[in-house]
C-alpha cells in the first residue's frame, strides 16, 4: 500500500519537477519567475492533440512536432514580451507573464473549448511491471524516466557545452558575461526555449492521466513552483528532489491524514522548511556584495 503510494507520488513529483526545472532555468538566467509556464505547456499539449486527431500523425512524430512548437513558443514569448522588459522592475515582468498566462488560457478556450478531451498514451493500457513485488504502472515509470532524462540532459548541456556555459555565465552576472563575449540576449532566448521544452514535456506526460482541458496546468504550475522552492531553485538537482518530495508527501498525507486537507498540510510543511532553510533544502546560499 505505502509502496504504491510512494510510486504514484514519485510519478506526480516528476511532473512537478519538470515544471520546476522549466521555471528554474528561466528564473536563473532572466530573473523572471514565469507564471505563464503552465499555460504555455497546456497550449503545446493541445497542439500535440490536434496533430494526433486532426492530422492523424503517428504518436511519436506528433509529440516531437509539439515539442518543437513548445520551444518556438518560448522563443517567441521571450522575444516579443520579455526582452523589452529587461531593466524594468521584476514585478512588471512577472505581471506580464501573468498576462500571457491569461491570454493563452482564453485563446485555448476559444480554439479548443473548455470541455475535457481524452489524450491517449501508448503506455496507458500496458500492464504494470513489478519491481520487488510493487506494481509500477508504465506511465508512472515513463514520467520518472522523462524527468531523470531531462535533468541529465540539461545538466550535461549546462556544464559541457559552450552555449550551456554561456547560460550559466549570464545567470551569474550580465555585465561580466558580456565582457567575456557571451551574447546575453541569445542566452535569454536559450533559457526560454529550454523552459518551453521542459514544460511542454510535462504537459504531454500529464495529459493522459488527468484528461486534457484548459485548466489542466493551473495546479501543476503552483506545485512546480512549490517543489522548486522546497528543493532550492539554485540547483537543478534540488528542483528535482524538491518536486519528488512534494509529490510523495502529498500522496502520503492525502492517504493517511486527510484527503481534502493535503494541500494545506503540504504547504504548512513547505513554510516550516523554508523558515529553517530560506534558500531551499538543497539551495546554495549565494554570497552577495553589498
Amino acid at each position: 500500500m505505502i509502496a504504491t503510494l510512494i510510486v504514484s507520488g514519485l510519478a506526480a513529483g516528476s511532473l512537478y519537477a519538470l515544471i520546476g526545472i522549466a521555471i528554474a532555468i528561466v528564473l536563473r538566467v532572466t530573473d523572471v519567475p514565469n507564471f505563464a509556464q503552465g499555460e504555455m505547456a497546456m497550449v503545446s499539449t493541445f497542439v500535440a492533440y490536434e496533430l494526433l486527431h486532426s492530422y492523424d500523425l503517428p504518436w511519436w512524430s506528433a509529440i516531437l512536432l509539439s515539442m518543437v512548437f513548445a520551444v518556438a513558443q518560448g522563443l517567441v514569448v521571450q522575444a516579443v514580451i520579455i526582452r523589452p522588459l529587461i531593466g524594468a522592475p521584476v514585478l512588471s515582468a512577472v505581471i506580464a507573464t501573468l498576462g500571457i498566462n491569461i491570454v493563452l488560457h482564453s485563446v485555448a478556450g476559444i480554439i479548443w473549448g473548455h470541455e475535457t478531451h481524452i489524450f491517449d498514451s501508448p503506455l496507458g493500457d500496458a500492464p504494470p511491471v513489478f519491481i520487488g513485488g510493487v506494481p509500477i504502472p508504465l506511465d508512472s515509470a515513463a514520467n520518472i524516466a522523462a524527468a531523470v532524462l531531462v535533468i541529465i540532459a540539461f545538466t550535461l548541456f549546462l556544464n559541457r557545452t559552450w552555449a550551456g556555459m554561456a547560460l550559466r555565465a549570464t545567470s551569474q552576472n550580465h555585465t561580466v558575461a558580456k565582457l567575456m563575449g557571451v551574447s546575453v540576449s541569445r542566452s535569454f532566448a536559450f533559457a526560454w526555449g529550454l523552459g518551453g521544452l521542459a514544460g511542454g514535456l510535462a504537459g504531454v506526460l500529464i495529459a493522459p492521466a488527468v484528461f486534457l482541458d484548459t485548466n489542466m496546468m493551473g495546479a501543476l504550475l503552483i506545485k512546480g513552483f512549490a517543489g522548486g522552492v522546497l528543493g532550492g531553485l539554485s540547483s537543478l538537482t534540488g528542483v528535482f528532489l524538491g518536486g519528488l518530495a512534494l509529490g510523495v508527501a502529498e500522496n502520503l498525507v492525502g492517504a493517511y491524514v486527510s484527503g481534502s486537507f493535503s494541500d494545506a498540510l503540504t504547504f504548512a510543511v513547505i513554510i516550516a522548511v523554508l523558515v529553517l532553510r530560506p534558500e531551499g533544502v538543497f539551495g546554495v546560499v549565494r554570497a552577495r556584495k553589498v
Partner: protein
Amino acid sequence: MSATLAAIPARGTDRPAWAMTLILLAAMLAAPFLVGSYIVYLLSLTLIFSIVALGLNVLTGLSGQISLGHAGFFAIGAYGTGLLTQKAGVPFPISLLAGAVIATAIGAIAALPALRLKNLYLAIATLGLGTVIQKTLFEWQGMTGGGAGLELAPATIGPLALREAAPLYYVILAVTCAGIWCARNIGRGRTGRAMQMLRESEVAAGTLAIPVARYKVIAFAVSAFYAAIAGGLYAYLVRYINPEGFNTGLSISFLSMIVIGGLGSVPGSIIGAAFYVALPELFRAIKDAPGLVFGLTLIIVMVFLPDGLWSLVSRIRERSWQR
C-alpha cells in the same frame, strides 16, 4: 539635514491635484443618483478592491515584500465579520473591526517567515499561507458552513439597514476615504520612509538604525488589516461567501492590481482596482473575451508602462509643468 529636508516641497500639495480629488469625490458621492444599481455595485466592488490594493501597496510597493496570500486575509475579514454579526449578534461596525484585528494578528505572524525569505521563496510561503487559510475555512464546516458557503442577512448600522445598494456604497466610500488618508500618511511619514529604505536595501536600512524586522512585521500587519476590512465589506456587498472564491487566483489578482496601477502609489492602487473591475465588465457578453482583453492589456501596459498606469498621468503632468 532636517533643514534640507524641509526645503523639499512636500508631494501632492499642488492645487490641480486637490481640485481633481474634490471633483472625483463629488462624482463618487453623486453616483448613486445618476447611475443604476448594477453600476453602483461595480463601484462598490472597485472601492473594496482599492482598499486591498492600498494595503498591499504598503507591503509590496513601499516595503518591497511580495505576497501571494492576501486572499487569505481578505477571507478572514469576510468570515470574521460575517460570523460575528450573524452568529454572535455583534453590531456590524464592531465585527468589521474585530475581523480585521484577527487578520492583523495573523498578518503579523505571517511576517515571521518574511524575516528570512525573499522574492519567489517569500511568494511561495505566502501562497502557502493563503492556501492554509482557505482550506481551513473549507474544513471548519461547523463554523463556516464549508463548501456550502455562508449566506448573510443585510448589515445594519444602528437603525439603518444596508439592504439597498446605495447606503452600503456610502459606507464603503467612507471607509475607502479613511483608508486613502491613512495610506497617504503612512507613505509620507516616518514609517513609510523607513519601509522604502528597507525596500531599497535591508543592509543599508539596518546601518541607519532602522529596525528591519519591526517594519516588516508592521507592513504585513497593516496590509492584512486593509485586506480584512475590505473582506468584511465584500461579505456584505455580495451577501454570500464561499471559501472557493478566496483562492490563489484572487491573491494574484490583488498583486496585478497594484502593479498595473503603479507600485507604491495611492492613486495607482485605485486605478489598478478600477481597471481590474471595469475592463472585463466591458466584454462580459462575449465568452472568453474578458480574459483575452484583460491579459493582452496587462502585457501591453507592462511592456510600454512598466511603472504602471499612474506613471502615465505623472508623466503628462511633468510635461505640462515644463511648459
